[in-house]
């Protein structure tokens, strides 16, 4: 049985323990030993269309090599990676938020655009689900831990943070969870919280005011009571391995909650310093919104505060990943819809008309805007090595590749920050050759790069089984090192 002591002494609170016994242990990466290491992943459901993040100079460069217009990655003519320095990234349709507005920091020179990454082995279609962040095909459930869980289990990343990771998002759903994109381990999906009020309660409930604060304190007593109960049940339990696993899982969850409770109480000052607006604090209450894009803004606010407070060093922010985009309607973008008729997310993506694509490009713009918001908040906060942004790499990536019903051949990705982690986020774009070319690279290489950067180098992330699904091993030298 898993004892509470064992949990307390494990740095990998969830599935990471076994992973740490592998190639990650005792290896040094690029990050300076004493600097914090953070990773923030924005994952957009159902495709980041490359045309909306392609800046004019990169397009011109690629088209001159191809000798024809670039409509998709299949038009690429280059056979070696093409690096375009000083790319005017903010001129891309959906990357305008990188530009300085007034006194804001320009993020153009702190970013890198990546084109030509493929992941056909994970499938595309509507969503690659867990495959997007695990670099493995997700058939019937999570094939393995996703990159966020792997990162969160690395001691240098986790440090003393109470939460292994923050996983939040915006989606239309009948439940407060999305279980399609993140996983602790094979068959163990990790929930993405999609209701901002619930996210607030989960991360900042310890410093909530009024009745919410009393309730939070009451939780500890209930948890302790439950822990004793489950412990007693487990000692007497036999006859069902399935049942035993369920009881053990419940015991683990209670123990983690208790540990976290103590940590959060100890962090009260830090939490209060950055506490986001509480549900019910304002009139009208923004937490009551039904617009997923407004919910995204709230989730981003909480995520940024969680990072600033030191609640976690790994964050995943989903914008309709998995099935979450399916029913999403964006009333705040009504004027952009074809005929100004707001329709569901799946139908919108099926349309394929220029107006419909414009709505989707605007969704990406808003998502990138939220990434920029976090990046700037981190850049404003000094810490060893410079600012928090220097120690944080932020990604904006799709969960299925290039479009609705995708081939998973083109995963256009934006990287921001992470200087101290070794990222070459200096305003460049890097375009790898198209899928099928020997020098094509894959999202698995990007995840290898993340692992190298935080001090847990691995060269074949997510490769399961004997099937050869990798074009090349190792990190992306054009972006890191």
């Amino acid at each position, binding site marked *: 049985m898993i004892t509470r002591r064992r949990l307390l002494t494990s740095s990998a609170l969830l599935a990471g323990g076994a992973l740490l016994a592998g190639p990650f242990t005792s290896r040094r990466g690029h990050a300076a030993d004493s600097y914090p290491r953070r990773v923030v992943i924005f994952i957009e459901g159902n495709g980041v269309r490359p045309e909306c993040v392609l800046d004019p100079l990169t397009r011109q460069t690629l088209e001159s090599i191809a000798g024809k217009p670039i409509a998709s990655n299949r038009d690429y003519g280059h056979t070696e990676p093409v690096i375009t320095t000083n790319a005017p990234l903010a001129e891309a349709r959906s990357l305008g938020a990188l530009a300085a507005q007034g006194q804001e920091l320009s993020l153009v020179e702190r970013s890198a655009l990546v084109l030509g990454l493929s992941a*056909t082995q994970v499938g595309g279609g509507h969503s690659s689900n867990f495959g997007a962040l695990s670099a493995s*095909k*997700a058939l019937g459930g999570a094939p393995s831990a996703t990159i966020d869980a792997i990162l969160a289990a690395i001691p240098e990343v986790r440090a003393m943070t109470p939460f292994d990771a923050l996983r939040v998002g915006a989606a239309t759903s009948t439940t407060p*969870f999305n279980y399609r994109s993140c996983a602790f381990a094979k068959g163990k999906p990790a929930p993405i919280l999609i209701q901002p009020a619930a996210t607030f309660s989960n991360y900042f409930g310890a410093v909530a005011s009024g009745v919410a604060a009393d309730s939070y304190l009451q*939780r500890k007593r209930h948890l302790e009571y439950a822990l004793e109960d489950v412990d007693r049940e487990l000692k007497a339990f036999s006859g*069902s391995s399935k*049942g035993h696993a369920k009881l053990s899982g*419940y015991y683990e969850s209670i123990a983690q909650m208790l540990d976290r409770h103590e940590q959060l109480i100890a962090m009260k000052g830090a939490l209060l310093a950055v506490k986001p607006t509480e549900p019910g604090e304002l009139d009208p209450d923004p937490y009551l919104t039904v617009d997923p894009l407004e919910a995204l803004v709230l989730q981003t606010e909480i995520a940024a505060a969680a990072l600033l407070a030191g609640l976690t060093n790994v964050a995943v922010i989903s914008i309709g990943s998995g099935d979450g985009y399916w029913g999403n309607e964006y009333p705040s973008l009504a004027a952009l819809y074809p005929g100004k008729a707001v329709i569901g997310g799946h139908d919108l993506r099926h349309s394929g008309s220029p107006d419909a694509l414009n709505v989707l490009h605007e969704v990406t713009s808003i998502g990138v805007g939220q990434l920029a918001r976090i990046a700037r908040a981190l850049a404003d906060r000094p810490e060893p090595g410079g600012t928090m942004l220097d120690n944080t790499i932020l990604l904006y990536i799709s969960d299925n590749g290039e479009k609705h019903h995708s081939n998973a051949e083109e995963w256009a990705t934006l990287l921001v920050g992470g200087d101290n982690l070794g990222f070459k986020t200096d305003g460049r774009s890097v375009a790898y050759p198209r899928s099928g070319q020997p020098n094509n690279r894959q999202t698995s290489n990007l995840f290898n790069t993340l692992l190298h950067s935080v001090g847990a180098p691995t060269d074949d992330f997510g490769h399961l089984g004997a099937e050869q699904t990798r074009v090349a091993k190792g990190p992306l030298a054009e972006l890191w090192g």
Partner: protein
Amino acid sequence: MSRTKLWLLWSIAAPSVACTQGDDSTSASEGTSQGVSVTTSATEDATTSGTTGPSTSSTTDPGETTGEPVDPPPEPSGNALDQNTLFMCVGAPALPPADLRLLDGREWYRGVGSDAKSQLRNVPLYPLPNHRYSSYGDGDNIDPSVLSFYLDVVNNAGVSWTIGKYNAGALRTVHEDPETQCFLKDVAPSAECTRYFARRFLERGAIFRPASDDQVDALVMLAQAELDEEVDVSARSATIRTIASAAWMTSGALFRPEMGAGQPDEHGRLRLSDWELAQAIAHALSRAPAGAPSVKLAGGGSVYSPGTVDGDLPEFLGAAESGEIKDPEVVAALVRKYIGGLDEERFDARLDPGYHENRGEYWMAAGVVAFFREWLDYGYLAELSPKVEVSATSQWSGSTVELSYHNTINGSKGRENTLITQLDDMIARILTADTNVFTELLTSRMFYTPATAGYQQGESSIYKSTAEMNRVYNVQQVTPQTREARWIELPAQERAGVLTHPAWLAAHALAFENDPNLVHRGKWIREELLCQDIPPLPLNVDAMLSEESQQQSARQRISEQLDAKPECAACHQYMNPLGYPFEIYNHAGFVRIEDHGAAPDGSSLLVDMPSPELNGPITSAVDLSQRLGASPYAKRCFIRQTFRYFAGREERMYDACTLAAMEEAYDASGGSFTELLIALFNSDSFQYRTPQ
């Protein structure tokens, strides 16, 4: 989008359409067998070869040949098993594993003394998305995020045990039990009083079976600590809430055991204990524990939800306590009493949102309602993307039709109920008659439609959202606000059964009338009415109809862009022929009068169907429904679906004797759904477990 059948939506989304680059393969994958083959292997792996064609056949599965318990992969798709073999009882024992089942949301909020109108319905105990039915328990877990939300909910749930007896929400279990009164009112309850209350709370409010001394001792200790801290008796409600929260955090309150008890039989199996069996049947039928508190309903008076001081389904408690639950006749009597029937008052509906007085007069147990909503997959219609131009290609038009239709989906205006409950009521009528149920489900023309009298212009300020609510049924007249008037026998050429009901048609369609709705409808029939899986689309298949074809009918778009291409037709041949008949309806369920300049065309040709009686030309969805309703093969799939939901798992080859007994009971009774369930509840598949 929907929760219990997200995996199904996933796969339904897959074949949206056609073919040059792109892929829906991952979408089609989750929770279904992949690329199922036509093999006879004895292993689950036999279902993964990737050949095209619907699955019909691996004949055995783990555990069948050796009789030894094995630990298979989670819930392999029952559709991968050969149906004919599944109904051949050769005497092999049923060997379902012992397990604990995590309660789902409804089971929990009913157990704590609440209902679907309460915020407690948001308790985060959701079925896993890869489960075919919400009743499945394989792989249930409470991770820290779920636990965090559960704590939020549970902290406020105990209030139901503190509400004054004159107020809505009061529980009979609390106020009609004289022995609980001392704990509610005494300044310093005695030790005996506290112990009684703690046991009472556990057994009638939390675990719904006899509590162990350890469980009672722990709760008494907590209660005493809380009592010691009270300033005065006014703090008692806070004390009770704390006791309740703590009790609801225990494993016994969250997990229902199906472990078995006593001595193993010759196959190493244990029979469920009397309490386990009684609660398993109660949960399957009512989605609530036997003993769930009877609640004083809102709206004045002294009307309570069903139940006594000991809660709802009291006969189950008595049968468990006496051991009579082992008697098949006792099980049969309990099922017959609680499965549903005629009830002019519709007490059951008072616990749910909506207007019970306008519902049909036939009711179904909550578990039966849930089964049909999940099997037919119409329960989450209101959460689907809204339809655009809802009456396109029908005889109706105008903003009043549009608004009235949307009102039948969300029920926001007036006091008529939604399409979902209208289909519930239609099914309840068929089940109350309980004769040839499967055939009736697919052929009945008695539809429960919305009343529109009193909602017309000049009668109501909301007439634009109500006056034409019945147009989706193609009803011309103003329907009076009586049950008799709402029941309408629709024309024989227009409707026949649940697959022609607007709720089902809309639930299996996209936003526009010429979207590939027929693919979705055909895929559902193949997978859920013929119990065959569709292979996933391979990579490099672009599931998009061309933008240039947006002015064409769906039939033309799909026949030209899918059927004509061998690489598409390889899979779509299993869906499209079953979907074309539904082109006599549009995406919202309106009867078409034209289709892009031509007459509506529901014709199709069914070939190579899994059973010969299904082959041949089809003229429309009405014709198709009648053929399916008469098909012994489709009937068997219906029996399999019934097994899945009410047994709470996918069927396995070792369930063959149970399935055969269910079919025999159904046929011998003239098609009784009640007898079908009785046969299941009295079967080894339901009553025995294998320790592991």
